[in-house]
């Protein structure tokens, strides 16, 4: 899924008519001061990172004046919050409020439908509300074909205890609009926590958490998003490039995540970093384990299914562009996919990256095919002459352990010759 920054989520909210506090994004302390001057009065400074719990980490600051805002921004820009360096800060007007709500619309796998969740005890630790007074949380699964009607939204809010009719209208209206955001932008989650109710009865979204289904990101080029996996850290350049492959051509499924982008972890555990291409979680994990047992660390994980050969070609180029790798292993699961497409894609990449040798690489590589069109895939490597390379082993229907063993032999022989 693709998670949006708070300010991006709020932009979507505003497009659907949900009110948000006045403010904009600052990239320097001076910009923060300028924005605070424009807003006037008390401001809130919120680092824009793709992780929750900013308040608990002490990374949300309040400023009474533009000078204070600049000072607070200076402190924040030097910080790392939950593993993310602070590069952008959302400077917003402070909204005094009497009551906080929690609102979300999310894809619930258990029901296989969207579910609206509303609580009148919004705030920092919403998870605890679910355990304490359960009356204060209401769930409602709307009919996705009919959408969420305004009266349904009102009825959801009405189920909460101690809610005035004014609140029902204000909060129900936002819930209806939040559902429109969820459906309109192919979200997996659209969440407001907290939704502030002011003394004038206005409902204002103080935060925004929006996640878009990564298979639908290509449908929203207007958002300018990189279709990147969420890895609990800032995305790497190669991950952004791999995400672009999906944006250009949404056919099939393609995932790429680096588990050791700079090779430091491999060094720390004294393992040999290898580029890795596998499809299917089970086979991927088994293969990684078998490689690890022999002293090799897969510096990335991948998954592709039902993709055109062109995407396999592009992804192979991305995997092989990790500068610290000392080998490459491709292992297919016992797949129903056309493995001939995999062979074509990888061969095209090899021939382009190693034009002088006709695709024969300069590091050890193992290609293991098992499944549909596996014989043809192996044959194709032979036809192109790549299978003859002393650094290449093309395998047919062997186990993950045998493939890892073959890679180990190749690698050891290569290292001996290099010495």
């Amino acid at each position, binding site marked *: 899924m693709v998670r949006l920054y708070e300010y991006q989520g709020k932009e979507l909210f505003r497009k659907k008519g949900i009110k948000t506090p006045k403010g904009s994004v600052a990239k320097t302390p001076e910009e923060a001061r300028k924005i605070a001057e424009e807003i006037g009065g008390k401001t809130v400074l919120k680092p824009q990172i793709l992780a929750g719990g900013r308040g608990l980490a002490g990374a949300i600051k309040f400023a009474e004046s533009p000078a204070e805002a600049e000072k607070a921004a200076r402190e924040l820009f030097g910080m790392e919050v939950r593993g993310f360096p602070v590069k952008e800060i959302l400077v917003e007007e402070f909204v005094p409020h009497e009551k906080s709500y929690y609102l979300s619309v999310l894809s619930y796998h258990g029901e296989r439908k969207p579910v609206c969740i509303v609580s009148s005890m919004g705030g920092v630790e919403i998870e605890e509300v679910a355990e304490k007074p359960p009356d204060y949380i209401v769930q409602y699964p709307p009919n996705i074909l009919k959408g969420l009607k305004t009266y349904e939204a009102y009825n959801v809010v009405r189920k909460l205890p101690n809610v005035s009719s004014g609140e029902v209208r204000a909060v129900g209206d936002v819930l209806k609009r939040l559902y429109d955001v969820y459906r309109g932008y192919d979200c997996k989650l659209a969440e407001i926590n907290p939704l502030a109710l002011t003394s004038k009865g206005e409902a204002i979204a103080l935060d925004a958490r929006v996640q878009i289904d990564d298979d639908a990101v290509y449908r929203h080029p207007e958002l300018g998003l990189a279709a990147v996996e969420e890895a609990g850290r800032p995305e790497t350049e190669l991950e952004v*490039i791999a995400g*672009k492959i999906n944006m*250009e*051509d949404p056919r099939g499924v393609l995932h790429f995540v680096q588990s050791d982008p700079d090779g430091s972890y491999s060094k720390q555990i004294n393992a040999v970093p290898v580029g890795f291409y596998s499809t299917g979680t089970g086979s991927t994990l088994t293969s990684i384990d078998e490689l690890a047992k022999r002293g090799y660390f897969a510096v990335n994980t991948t998954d592709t299914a039902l993709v055109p*050969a062109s995407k396999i070609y592009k992804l192979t180029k991305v995997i092989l562009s990790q500068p610290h790798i000392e080998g490459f292993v491709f292992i297919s699961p016992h797949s129903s996919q056309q493995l001939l497409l995999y062979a*074509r894609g990888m061969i095209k990449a090899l021939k382009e990256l190693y034009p002088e040798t006709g695709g024969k*690489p300069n590091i050890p590589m193992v290609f293991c095919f098992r499944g549909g069109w596996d014989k043809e895939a192996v044959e194709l490597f032979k*036809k192109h002459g790549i299978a003859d390379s002393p650094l290449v082993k093309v395998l047919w229907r062997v186990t993950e352990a045998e493939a890892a063993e073959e890679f180990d032999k190749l690698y050891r022989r290569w290292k001996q010759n290099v010495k």
Partner: protein
Amino acid sequence: MSSKIEVETPGKGRLTINLEACKTCESKACTKACPVNLIKLDEAGLPVLDEKTSKVCTDCLACEDACSLEGKGGLTIVYPMPELEQHVQKLEAEGVKVVWRR
């Protein structure tokens, strides 16, 4: 008549057929390789791309593969990846070479 055919595939590839090479090709392997039958031969025996190619092509690379193995290499598909090229250049400017550039 132009000696080149060029079309963009759905996977944002630039498919080019150099007809000069095709004139010397006996196999015309590309026509048999395409699983969705988008490459046909004209009266002169040269490949013609179906007008649906830019929508229907599955980017399976079968035509290019067949041409390189059995034909004269006149058919190529280029998938530009400018961001990857820039990334590799940036690494090199920092003194880091990717494996295939060593």
